[in-house]
């Protein structure tokens, strides 16, 4: 049986995002939390896999205790089991610390064939964990797939590569980072929700793992948030008049003035 892990993160719902002025960090108390939207596509892929292959699906997240509700939601969608990696020691981990803890978790769990992630999180948008984790676990990472099949230990897929597509054959275990809108995440049945709350969630904490002492999120994360600023790109509307040629000339000048002019060299 294939052991399929989906790695998700709980994030604040975008409309309730607020930033603490003094620390520059996101306020995570008393706000509505959801599954990171990109991760829904990863969950959907796992559920689709289960329909065609003999697979056991597990959803995993590293986060505070309240991240449990994101796991319940994934269970409600139809994922079989859930793992919560949580410990005060892991608080404030940056992407590197997160990766290293998750790596330890997989060393501890031992069996895994397919790790699926979304593209990036809506609350920090680095998209780094999938790449780092594939390095840490030393397994291949394939991004942007659109067709796939599994035969024995072989995974065959097609992936987007700019304007081309690549055919890939690779041996499990692997990691997949799926693109947004790669599929259509299913709606959650009410019965699924009911059953999700009857399941037991496996908790992995600092002591469960044989953590080397550099895995201490608060103190060992190399990332420092210096400042968080609201950034609003400034736009200006301007109507251009004249013949097509004059208009083109005008635009060229604007580009030149702003240092974005490029000479068209042809192919």
């Amino acid at each position, binding site marked *: 049986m294939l052991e399929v892990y989906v790695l998700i993160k709980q994030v604040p719902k975008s409309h309730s995002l607020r930033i603490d002025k003094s620390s520059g960090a996101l306020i995570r108390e008393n706000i509505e939390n959801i599954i990171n939207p990109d991760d829904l596509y990863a969950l959907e892929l796992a559920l689709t896999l289960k329909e065609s292959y003999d697979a056991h699906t597990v959803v995993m997240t590293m986060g505070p205790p309240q991240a*449990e509700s994101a796991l*319940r939601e994934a269970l*409600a969608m139809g994922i079989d089991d859930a793992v919560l990696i949580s410990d005060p020691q892991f608080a404030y981990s940056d992407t590197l610390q997160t990766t290293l803890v998750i790596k330890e978790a997989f060393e501890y769990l031992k069996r895994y064939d397919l790790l699926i992630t979304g593209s990036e999180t809506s609350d920090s948008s680095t998209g780094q964990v999938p790449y780092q984790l594939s390095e840490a676990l030393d397994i291949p990472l394939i991004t942007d797939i659109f067709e796939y099949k599994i035969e024995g230990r072989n995974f065959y897929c097609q992936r987007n590569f700019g304007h081309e597509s690549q055919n890939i054959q690779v041996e499990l275990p692997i990691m997949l980072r799926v693109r947004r809108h790669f599929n259509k995440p299913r*709606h959650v049945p009410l019965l699924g929700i009911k059953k999700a709350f009857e399941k037991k969630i496996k908790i992995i904490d600092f002591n469960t793992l044989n953590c080397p002492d550099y895995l201490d999120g608060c103190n060992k994360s190399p990332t420092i948030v210096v400042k968080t600023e609201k950034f609003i790109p400034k736009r200006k509307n301007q109507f251009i008049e004249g013949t097509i040629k004059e208009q083109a000339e005008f635009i060229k000048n604007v580009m030149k003035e702003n240092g974005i002019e490029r000479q068209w060299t042809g192919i």
Partner: protein
Amino acid sequence: MNFQLTEKQKLIRRRIRTFSEDFLAPVAPIIDRELKFSWETARELKKINAWGIQLPQKYGGAELDSISYAICIEEIARVCASTALNVTVHNSVGAFPIYKWGTEKQKEKYLYDLASGNKIAAFTWTEPNAGSDAGGIESLAIEEDDKFILNGSKIFVTNGGVASIILVGAKYQKSDGNHGIGTFIVEKEMDGLEIGDTEDKLGMRGSSTTSLYFHDIEIPKTNILGRLDDGFKIAMKTLNVGRIGIAAQAVGIAQAAYEYSVKYAKGRIQFNKPISQFEGISFKLADMATDIDAARLLVYKAANFKDLNRPFAKESAMCKYYASKIAREITQKAIQIHGGYGYMKDLPLERFYRDSKVTEIYEGTSEIMKLIIAQQILRGDL
């Protein structure tokens, strides 16, 4: 006392909201305009167990608590009140009584199809000469050997044109008042059932409302629901449950109108400021928010009493009376806040207004709700 929803209830609210916004929002204006029950929507609702929200898992239901039920209906109604009506009638006055008073055989026979939504249910009591006076029905089911022969007619049947399983109130002997009344399970396939035209109506136009005519329908005795002479009691107890759903529906409509209003009032500029900065508007919003909260809490209270197996006739009448009243008022205020735009069909405000009205009428008018509340408090249930 705890005013927090459980994590499960919160998840239900969020997921039913997402579902409604994805699937119901695009069809709501269409079915309203075209006076059409949407089978496609009915199929989507099957996928999320909306036709068996509280039925036991054994039959394929989601076996949820009554507050979760109210949340589901509210969230559906917030986007499409007609769909909420179809769903709540099916669940609360169609499937529920069969689960509550049905024999094992009846449950086995009907509940799987009802929980899955393969079959839709209706509950029909109202007749041309019997509305609020529910004991005044004239449909007649005369006993003959091992069956009853049903004749008569019903009006204003929700799900009338789409239901396969229909609960019918009928007299089995000529008598005055609430006696001699039975509740019968009529199946669509039975000979002698005629379905009238779809009623053209002010609101809830995505719900199929029809008359039903019974011409010598042979109903086997195995299709009596509960004890034969308990028909009236079953109907009244069923409506106590149904009203929680209707009240939740009213809250959903009000909530939608309120959300539109807040957004609009913040964005609409007149006299160089958002109209939300005029007290005439902001106080309306404050009233709306307060009324909705109060109505929702009354709904949850009735739902909770039901789950605790406490009497809840009064609570259910109160929540329906209050929620339907504020829904009508709030949808009207919402149009006022939107000015002329609110009156146009481009925005859904006029639909909310039209949809809200009937919550004060069906499953007992507001006058009848007050009658019930008064009876209960005067009886000593202060």
